[in-house]
C-alpha cells in the first residue's frame, strides 16, 4: 500500500467519523439488520425506502446511510434462516443448510454468533481488498462477457445440484423446475411474452424473493404442520446461553472463513452475479474441501460460517463496479447509483478525483459499518433467539402474515399472494418427497440471466456455439463445472482405493 492510499483513507475516516455521519451509520446498520430479518424485505427494499432521504441529506451522508443499510441487511438476513429455516433473501438461503439444524440441536446461540463473526471477518477482509485491488479486479471482471457468464452459471448450478451425491437426479429435477419458473414473463431478447397467460403482473416475471418465501418459508410451515400437534410445547426452547462460540467451533471455522471470503468478494465484483451465487458456491466449495463432508447439512458450524463470510464479502465486492466503473453490480447498487445521479455526481473512476471525500468517506464507512454491525448483532441475537420460545402454533401464523407483507412490498401489489400460496404448495410437495430445494432456489436466481447470456452469446457469434469456448476463462469454468459434478464420485473412488490398499 502506498502512502497515497493511506492518506486517502485518513481523509475518508475523517468524513466517516463526523458525528452526524457516524450516527446515521448506526441508525442505518440497525435499520438494515431489522429489514434484513423480515422475510421479503432485503437490502434493495431498505435502500429504496431511504431514497427520499437523499433529498434532504448531503451526498456522503446519504451514501453512508445507504451502505450501512445494505450490509446491515446482509448481517441480518440470515437470522430467520437460522432460527426458522426461512431465508429473508437469496443470499441467506445457504445459511439455512447448517444454521437451522444447529438451532434445532439447541445450538442457536453458537449459530447466531458465528454468523455475525464470519460476516464481520468476511466484510473486514473485503474492505481491505477493496482499498488495495479495486481497480485491477474491476478491469479483470470486464473480461466476463455473455459467454463467460453463461459458463459461470452452469458451474454454479452444476455444483449445487451435485451437492448431494445420492440425490443428484432429484437435485437436477429441482434445478430444471427452477429454470422453468424463470422463463415466465417477457423475453428480454425478443419481447415475446412467455407463459404470462394474459396477466400484466406476470410480464415482468416471477420475482425470486416470492419463490424463496413461497417454497422455503410457506412450504416449510406447511410441512411442519405434520408434527405441530404431536410435538406440542416440547419443542420450545426455554433456556438460552450466551451468544458466543467455543474454541473448538472457532478452530473449525477460521480456515473456511478465510478461504471463502475471496470467492464471495470476486463474485460480488462481477456485475449481475450476486450474494446467492456467492453463498451457495462457498458452501459447495467448503463441503467438497471438508474432511467430514457427511456432517454438512446436519449442523456443521463451518457450513454456516463459509456462506456468511462469502455473502458479506460479496456485498462489499459489489460496490467495486459501481464506484470504479459506474456499473451497478446488483439491484441494490443500481438503486444507490440512481441516488448518486440525483446529486449530479458521476460514479466512475473520476469520482475518486472529483469527490474524494465522498468516495473515500464511503469506503471508510465500510470498515466502521462492519464493526458497528457486529456490535449491534451480538446483543440483538440474544434477544432474537428468544423467538424459539414462542410455540410454533403462534409463531407460524405470524411468520405467514409477515411473509405476505414482505411480498407485497416487492411490487406494491397483492397479485403475488396467489402465486405465493401455489409456491408454498410446491415447497410442501418437495419436502414430502425429499427433493432438495437449494438447486431450485439457485436456478430461480440465476436462471433468467443464464438464458439471456446464452442467447446474447449466440447473437454475438451469429449462432455459433464455439463462442462458449472462446476464452480461457470459459475453459477453466467448464473444467470446474465438470469437476464439481464428478468430484463426489472421484473422492469415493479414491477412498475405496485407499481402503483396498490398506
Amino acid at each position, binding site marked *: 500500500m502506498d502512502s497515497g492510499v493511506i492518506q486517502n483513507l485518513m481523509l475518508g475516516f475523517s468524513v466517516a467519523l463526523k458525528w452526524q455521519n457516524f450516527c446515521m451509520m448506526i441508525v442505518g446498520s440497525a435499520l438494515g439488520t431489522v429489514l434484513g430479518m423480515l422475510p421479503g424485505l432485503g437490502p434493495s427494499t431498505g435502500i429504496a425506502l431511504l431514497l427520499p432521504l437523499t433529498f434532504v441529506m448531503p451526498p456522503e451522508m446519504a451514501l453512508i446511510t445507504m451502505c450501512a443499510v445494505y450490509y446491515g441487511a446482509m448481517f441480518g438476513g440470515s437470522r430467520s434462516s437460522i432460527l426458522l429455516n426461512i431465508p429473508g433473501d437469496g443470499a441467506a438461503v445457504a445459511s439455512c443448510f447448517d444454521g437451522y439444524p444447529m438451532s434445532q440441536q439447541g445450538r442457536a446461540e453458537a449459530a447466531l454468533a458465528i454468523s455475525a463473526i464470519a460476516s464481520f471477518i468476511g466484510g473486514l477482509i473485503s474492505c481491505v481488498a477493496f482499498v488495495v485491488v479495486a481497480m485491477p479486479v474491476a478491469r479483470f*471482471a470486464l473480461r466476463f462477457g455473455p459467454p463467460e457468464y453463461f459458463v459461470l452459471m452452469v458451474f454454479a448450478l452444476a455444483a449445487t445440484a451435485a451437492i448431494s451425491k445420492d440425490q443428484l437426479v432429484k437435485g437436477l429435477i429441482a434445478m430444471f423446475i427452477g429454470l422453468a419458473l424463470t422463463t415466465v414473463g417477457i423475453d428480454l431478447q425478443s419481447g415475446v411474452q412467455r407463459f404470462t397467460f394474459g396477466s400484466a403482473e406476470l410480464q415482468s416475471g416471477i420475482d425470486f424473493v416470492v419463490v424463496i418465501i413461497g417454497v422455503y418459508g410457506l412450504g416449510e410451515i406447511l410441512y411442519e404442520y405434520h408434527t405441530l400437534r404431536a410435538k406440542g410445547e416440547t419443542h420450545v426452547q426455554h433456556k438460552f446461553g450466551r451468544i458466543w462460540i467455543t474454541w473448538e467451533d472457532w478452530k473449525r471455522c477460521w480456515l473456511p472463513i478465510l478461504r471463502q471470503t475471496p470467492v464471495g468478494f470476486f463474485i460480488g465484483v462481477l456485475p449481475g452475479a450476486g450474494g446467492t451465487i456467492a453463498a451457495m458456491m462457498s458452501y459447495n466449495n467448503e463441503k467438497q474441501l471438508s474432511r467430514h463432508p457427511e456432517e454438512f447439512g446436519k449442523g456443521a458450524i463451518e457450513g454456516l460460517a463459509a456462506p456468511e463470510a462469502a455473502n458479506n464479502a460479496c456485498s462489499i465486492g459489489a460496490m467495486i463496479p459501481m464506484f470504479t466503473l459506474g456499473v451497478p453490480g446488483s439491484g441494490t447498487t443500481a438503486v444507490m447509483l440512481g441516488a448518486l445521479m440525483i446529486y449530479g455526481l*458521476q460514479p466512475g473512476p473520476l469520482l475518486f478525483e472529483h469527490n474524494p471525500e465522498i468516495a473515500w468517506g464511503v469506503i471508510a464507512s465500510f470498515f466502521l459499518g462492519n464493526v458497528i454491525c457486529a456490535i449491534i448483532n451480538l446483543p440483538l441475537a440474544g434477544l432474537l433467539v428468544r423467538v424459539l420460545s414462542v410455540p410454533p402454533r403462534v409463531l407460524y401464523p405470524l411468520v405467514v402474515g409477515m411473509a405476505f407483507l414482505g411480498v407485497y412490498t416487492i411490487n406494491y401489489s397483492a397479485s403475488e399472494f396467489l402465486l405465493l400460496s401455489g409456491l408454498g404448495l410446491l415447497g410442501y410437495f418437495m419436502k414430502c418427497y425429499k427433493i432438495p430445494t437449494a438447486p431450485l432456489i439457485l436456478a430461480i436466481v440465476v436462471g433468467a440471466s443464464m438464458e439471456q447470456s446464452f442467447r446474447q452469446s449466440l447473437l454475438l457469434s451469429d449462432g455459433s456455439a464455439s463462442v462458449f469456448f472462446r476464452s480461457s476463462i470459459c475453459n477453466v469454468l467448464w473444467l470446474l463445472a465438470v469437476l464439481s459434478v464428478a468430484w463426489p464420485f472421484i473422492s469415493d473412488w479414491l477412498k475405496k482405493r485407499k481402503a483396498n490398499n490398506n
Partner: protein
Amino acid sequence: MLKKCTLALVLAVFLAGSAHAAFPSRNFECIAPAGPGGGFDTTMRMVAKVLTEQKIVSRAMPVINKPGGGGGVALAYINAKKDPHTIAVYSPPLLLINLTGQTELSYKNVTPLAMLINDFGAFAVPKDSPYKTIGDLFDALKKDPKSVKLGGTSSPGSMDHIQFLHAAKAAGVDVKGITYIAFQGGEALANLLGGHIDVYTTGMAEVVAMLEAGDIRVLALTSPERIKNGPLSQIPTLKEEGVDAVFVNWRGIFGIPNMPKEAREYMEASLKKMTETPEWDEICQRNGWTKVFMGSSDFEKFLVKTNEEYKSLLETVGLYSQAK
C-alpha cells in the same frame, strides 16, 4: 379500547364517501410506473416534491411505485381508477408497450396533463473502436449489418433500440438486419467497456462518467442541437453529422382516463406554475434534463403524431404487433 377503535375504523372505512367537492378534495396518489431509483421514480418524486414544497398543491402527494410490464401494470391500474386524484409519469414506453403488443392499453387510456422534460439518446463505442464517427458506423452497417453488434438496456422495441433504428433508418441503413442485444441494468455498459459489444445505445446521463474518464467515445447525440454544458457539449448531434434525425425521450404527467375538466385544468396550471420555479430549474440542471413545457391539449396532439412515427418504424423492423 383497541377493539372499539377497530370497529370504528371499519365503520368509517365503509362510510367514506366518494362525493367530491372542489378539486383537489383529498390527497393525491402519484404513480411511478417502475421500481425505486430509476428515471420514472426520480421524476415523479421531484415533481411531487416541488409541487408540495412550493405550496402549489395543498394536498399531500405520496409517491407509489407500481413496477411491472414495462409500465403496463401501472397503466392498467390508472385505467381502472375513477378518482381523479391519481397522476402518473410516463415517457415513450407508454406508446411502445402498446405498439409492440405488450398491452392493449395505450396513451388513449390516460389523460395527458403536461410534458415537462426532454432527454436525449447517445451512441457510444469503446475508446479503441475503429468507428471514429457515426458515419463510419452507419457505413459499416450498410456493408454488412452483422458486422456491428448493438447493445442496449431492455428488450427490442424499447426506447434504446428504437432511437438507434430511427437514426440508422434516416442514414439509409437497412434496419431490418441489425443485431440488437438486450441487457439489463448496467450490464450493457460493462459489456461495452469489455469490448463484447461494438455500440451501446442509451440515454445521455448513462455515458457521462465514462466519457469524462476517457474509457468510451460518444459518436453522436439524438438532440436537435448541441448540449450547452459539461462534457457532452463536445459531442456532435446526428444532424451535425449529416443524419437528419432527432429522437426525444419526453417525460410528462398523466391523469386518469376521461379526467373531469376541472381537475385537468387544475393540474395543468399547477404543473405550469411548477416549471416556473427556480427549484424546478435547479432539479432539471442537476439531473441533466432539458426543461420544456407543453400543455395538455398540445401534448395530446403530440402523442397522436409520435405514435404514428413509432408505429411506422416498428413496422419496418417487424416488431409492430397488436395485443389481443
